[in-house]
């Protein structure tokens, strides 16, 4: 009621007064003009009147009344309340504990959001406010927390630390605390604002990841040890079967010789597998020193033309060499690089069509040499291409595998080439064929 009255009475008078005043001015002016129109001194009087009184009229118009100020204050207050509510709901929504504590010896809690109350297992705000900020951390961390708070206040900076939080029921849990000083209007530090993140979940994830890592390591170690352990019995099988073969030759028993060949062949296959596993683990280990020396890759390929051709012979395939002329110096282990090329060609023969032409092509630019092996086979399905250079890529579909091996060949190729800062890749078109390539950086002569 009071408000309406104030508004009505004051507001009306405020609007009416200047208008009335103006009207009076004009009336007086007209009167003066009519009364002293032809008297020269009248101009002076008119001017004097106008200039002495008009400003006061404007002042009255522009001056705000107390009531206006009150109204504005109320509007501002409303806006502030809305903002406060806005931030308050934002604070209570935050999935992190936000709290403030006083900059005094007790460090009593000034405020805390809903999440903070729940996180620490308190009933309500009052329940929580009975605590000092030190009470919400494990007592063993007291000294560290106080030291950090003092440092924070002295430097007026922000700090991030990990502590052990303490719930009302005594449960301990890992937390990350972000804190920053709260300044009052005089720039004095009145308290500290803290944002506290519960790290239990993250710690659990981290532990799981660590566990997975160590399991993965254990698997690699097992493979490595198993492969090494296989070497001794393999030696016996290989050597004894060779000895047997010699003896059967001396005895003239060809049948035994054939059987022994079978044993020897299978043992060789096993040996190849063991070698693959060991090569893979060796190149996976980044700390293991790898051999590296400069050589001409083009010369290396040219010197292996016959060996590579022999790989293609069993399936009646032909090799077409398109090797650049000149030199291409790279720094690597030439045996390992040949192993990669052999593997590419061997795959092209195995997976390509019989009696096809396999192209081995080199492309040299200013910084690298690229070696491509192209077959005319069935091509690789797009969904398989992404995994083709991954470890055990053959194991994915173990029941429908068409080729022997455990899928380490191309993985090893990638490890070898990448350890010499090169790249491997494949392009493939279904029913047309695939191109496997590797590139190595050229070194200056």
């Amino acid at each position, binding site marked *: 009621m009071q408000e309406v009255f104030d508004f009505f009475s004051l507001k009306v008078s405020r609007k009416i007064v200047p208008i009335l005043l103006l009207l009076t001015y004009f009336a007086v002016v007209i009167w003066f003009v009519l009364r002293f129109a032809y008297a020269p001194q009248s101009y002076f009087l008119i001017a004097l009147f106008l200039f002495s009184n008009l400003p006061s009229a404007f002042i009255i118009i522009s001056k705000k009344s107390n009531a206006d100020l009150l109204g504005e204050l109320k509007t501002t207050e409303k806006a502030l309340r809305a903002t406060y509510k806005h931030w308050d709901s934002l604070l209570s929504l935050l999935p992190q504990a936000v709290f403030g504590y006083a900059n005094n010896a007790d460090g009593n809690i000034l405020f805390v959001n809903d999440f903070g109350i729940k996180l620490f297992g308190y009933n309500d705000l009052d329940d929580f406010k009975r605590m000092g900020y030190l009470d919400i951390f494990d007592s063993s961390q007291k000294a560290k927390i106080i030291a950090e708070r003092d440092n924070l206040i002295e430097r007026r900076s922000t700090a991030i630390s990990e502590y052990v939080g303490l719930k009302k029921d005594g449960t301990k849990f890992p937390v990350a605390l972000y804190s920053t000083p709260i300044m009052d209007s005089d720039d004095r530090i009145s308290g500290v604002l803290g944002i506290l993140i519960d790290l239990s979940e993250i710690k659990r994830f981290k532990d799981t990841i660590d566990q997975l890592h160590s399991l993965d390591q254990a698997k690699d170690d097992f493979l490595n040890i198993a492969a090494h352990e296989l*070497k001794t019995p393999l030696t016996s099988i290989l*050597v004894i079967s060779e000895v047997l073969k010699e003896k059967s030759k001396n005895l003239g028993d060809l049948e035994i010789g054939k059987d022994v060949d079978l044993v020897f062949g299978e043992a060789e296959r096993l040996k190849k597998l063991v070698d693959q596993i060991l090569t893979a683990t060796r190149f996976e280990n980044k700390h293991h020193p790898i051999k590296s020396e400069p050589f001409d890759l083009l010369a290396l390929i040219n010197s292996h033309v016959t060996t590579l051709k022999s790989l293609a012979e069993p399936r009646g395939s032909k090799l077409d060499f398109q090797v650049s002329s000149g030199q291409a110096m790279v720094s690597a282990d030439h045996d390992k690089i040949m192993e990669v090329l052999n593997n590419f060609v061997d795959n092209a023969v195995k997976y390509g069509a019989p009696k096809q032409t396999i192209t081995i092509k080199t492309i040299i630019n200013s910084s690298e040499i690229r070696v491509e092996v192209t077959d005319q086979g069935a091509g690789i399905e797009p969904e398989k291409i992404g995994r083709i250079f991954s470890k055990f890529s053959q194991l994915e579909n173990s029941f429908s595998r068409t080729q022997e091996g455990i899928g380490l060949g191309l993985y090893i190729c990638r490890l070898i080439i990448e350890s010499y800062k090169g790249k491997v890749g494949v392009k493939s078109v279904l029913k047309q064929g695939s191109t496997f390539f590797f590139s190595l950086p050229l070194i200056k002569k």
Partner: protein
Amino acid sequence: MKILVIDNDVSIGITIKAALGLNASYEVTVCLSAKEGLEEMKKNEYGVVLLDFMMPEINGIDLCKIMAVDEKLKNIPVILISALPITSEVFQKSNGNFNEISVVKGLLEKPFSVAELLGKVSAVLNLNK
């Protein structure tokens, strides 16, 4: 020519003996521990010793060190046998001279073939002629 094989793994001893047996001029004795091998070397004169790298109690390297300071044994050439490729790298570091262990004249990495075994043995024997 008398050849001594020292390996705690029985099957490797038999295997090497069988392979070297292809050469009628080789007479092979197998010992299953370094200690046994040392005694055997002191009893009989051997042209070459094939020695396993990893053995319990006294391992291959330690036995070589013992041999290197023994007046009677320091001239017997040793071929180290190992399943670990690291041996060859360890020795490459000393420029292939096997400086540290003077008696070691060759390395054989498992799995090896008959040809590799015979080749290494005859190479080391020729070296000592």
